[in-house]
């Protein structure tokens, strides 16, 4: 289903507050109308029913929880240690920046000047597959690669450098408003997800090029107001997203060298500012909607929502977009509600602790990062595995004009190199590993947040419930989307 935006030309696509969206989510799972008369025909050749994978995943999470309670009595990730293993040549940073600018320029050029057929143009595959999914898969391994490639940052730094050399310099940036936090990044990722999953013109390369220019313009304004690095740390949706994923990695790139650290330990140093939890809920929620929108449940709900909007006077296309927008936002709210439920539960184990709920939510926000990654891998792995191959012929013919720059323009997409069964196993493994990593991070943080280990462990009952809920939700969405 994730591949659909490339292939389909037409549009396809305090406690009470916490309980309401959860109830909505559960109702969606069990709603009889949602799955009426739809057969669950799996393409995979699995030895056990798919739902049994949900049980196995829950068992793994419970076993991990018990193992953490027994074998992990001291925080191990909270005081990260790292060691420098290599120097980083000074030319590497501007070189990577120039490469990023070149790729961005090529994407824009292809978008405006190339064939406007989605699969014949480099822009859609580069943006939705290699950039959005490919970088998300690479960043947790090699570190924050996007920071080096970021074309907007590279251009801004080049302008600042030239201004400095010219002796003029640039005006001092304004102090970044604390209240803004990572909210601009959350809105940026939500807007991107909307384009990817809702916008009917997403398959049009020129539309994508215009939107990329608009996004770049917003970044330039942000950087000029608040400073390049500050804006990239808090305001640039992609900068923040890949920066978070890069914190999972055992590598950290700095000006003075390459550092090695324990995987996940980079996340414990995440500064929690407003909007951090929202950004993570947006990542998980929008990815969930990607799965949901490919399933039978949404197939039953969306026509009703669309009819509702049409009855209010909107035309079919706009009504469909509005229906999908409602689904997208509802998915984010369900995820946010689940997390808030877990946080409120954690607070309940120590009634003497008067820490505000938002602060506790922020304290454990880093545990959502591996879950976000798990959701992205689980939902988009097939997209990367299949649609990513298009780069073979698009590299030689980026504009779809019949060019053959590297002699590969006859390359095709091999849909048999990885089986549906293998994809299912990758999806399940990603979800389980991501949620176990989330449990580890939450447990480690609980050990320094609560008065004693016993209270810390009891507080994590709630996080265990949240993790199992996310895992079950993820597997259900995937099984529905794959059917």
């Amino acid at each position, binding site marked *: 289903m994730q591949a659909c935006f490339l292939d389909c030309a037409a549009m396809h696509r305090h406690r009470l507050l916490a309980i309401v969206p959860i109830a909505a989510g559960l109702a969606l*799972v069990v709603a*009889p109308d949602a799955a009426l*008369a739809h057969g669950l025909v799996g393409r995979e050749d699995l030895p056990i*029913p798919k739902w049994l994978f*949900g049980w196995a995943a829950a068992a793994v999470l419970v076993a991990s929880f018990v193992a953490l309670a027994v074998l992990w009595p001291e925080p191990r990730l909270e005081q990260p240690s790292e060691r420098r293993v290599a120097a980083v040549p000074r030319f590497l940073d501007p070189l990577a920046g120039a490469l990023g600018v070149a790729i961005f320029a090529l994407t824009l050029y292809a978008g405006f000047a190339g064939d406007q057929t989605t699969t014949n143009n480099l822009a859609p595959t580069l943006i939705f597959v290699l950039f959005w999914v490919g970088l998300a898969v690479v960043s947790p391994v090699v570190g924050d690669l996007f920071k080096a490639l970021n074309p907007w940052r590279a251009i801004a730094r080049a302008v600042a450098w030239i201004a400095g050399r010219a002796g003029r310099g640039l005006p001092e940036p304004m102090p970044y408003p604390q209240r803004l936090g990572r909210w601009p990044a959350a809105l940026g990722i939500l807007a991107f997800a909307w384009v990817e999953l809702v916008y009917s013109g997403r398959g049009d390369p020129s539309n994508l090029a215009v939107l990329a220019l608009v996004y770049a313009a917003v970044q330039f304004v942000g950087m000029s107001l608040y400073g390049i690095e500050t804006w990239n740390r808090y305001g640039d949706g992609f900068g923040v997203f890949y920066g978070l994923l890069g914190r999972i990695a055992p590598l950290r790139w700095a000006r003075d060298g390459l550092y090695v650290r324990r995987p996940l330990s980079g996340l414990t140093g995440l500064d929690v500012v407003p909007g951090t939890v929202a950004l993570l809920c947006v990542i998980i929620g929008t990815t969930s909607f990607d799965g949901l929108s490919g399933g039978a449940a949404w197939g039953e709900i969306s026509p009703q929502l669309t009819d509702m909007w049409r009855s209010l006077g909107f035309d079919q296309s706009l009504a469909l977009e509005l229906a999908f927008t409602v689904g997208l936002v509802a998915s984010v709210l369900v995820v946010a509600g689940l997390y808030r439920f877990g946080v409120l539960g954690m607070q309940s184990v120590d009634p003497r602790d008067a820490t505000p709920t938002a602060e506790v939510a922020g304290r454990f926000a880093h545990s959502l990062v591996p879950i976000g990654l798990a959701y992205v891998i689980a939902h988009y792995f097939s997209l990367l595995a299949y649609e990513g191959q298009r780069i073979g012929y698009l590299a030689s013919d980026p504009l779809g004009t019949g060019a053959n720059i590297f002699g590969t323009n006859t390359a095709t997409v091999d849909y048999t190199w990885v089986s549906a069964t293998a994809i299912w196993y990758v999806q399940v493994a990603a979800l389980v590993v991501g949620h176990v990593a989330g449990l580890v991070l939450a447990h480690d943080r609980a050990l320094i947040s609560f008065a004693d280990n016993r209270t810390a462990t009891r507080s994590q009952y709630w996080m265990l419930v949240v993790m*199992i809920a996310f895992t*079950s939700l993820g597997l259900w969405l995937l099984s529905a989307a794959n059917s």
Partner: protein
Amino acid sequence: MIAPLAHVGHWAINLLYVAPLVVVVAVLGYQTLKDRRQLRREGGQERRAPDEAA
């Protein structure tokens, strides 16, 4: 009402995805109640101790 019942096999399978969550919530809920009772007992014993000493 008839249609959902006639297709119960189709949608009921969705419940199996929620089942592990329900089981874990039930077990942890029971454990939480036990913990609270034990804490209350321990608290009560601590409060009684000075009286007994007097």
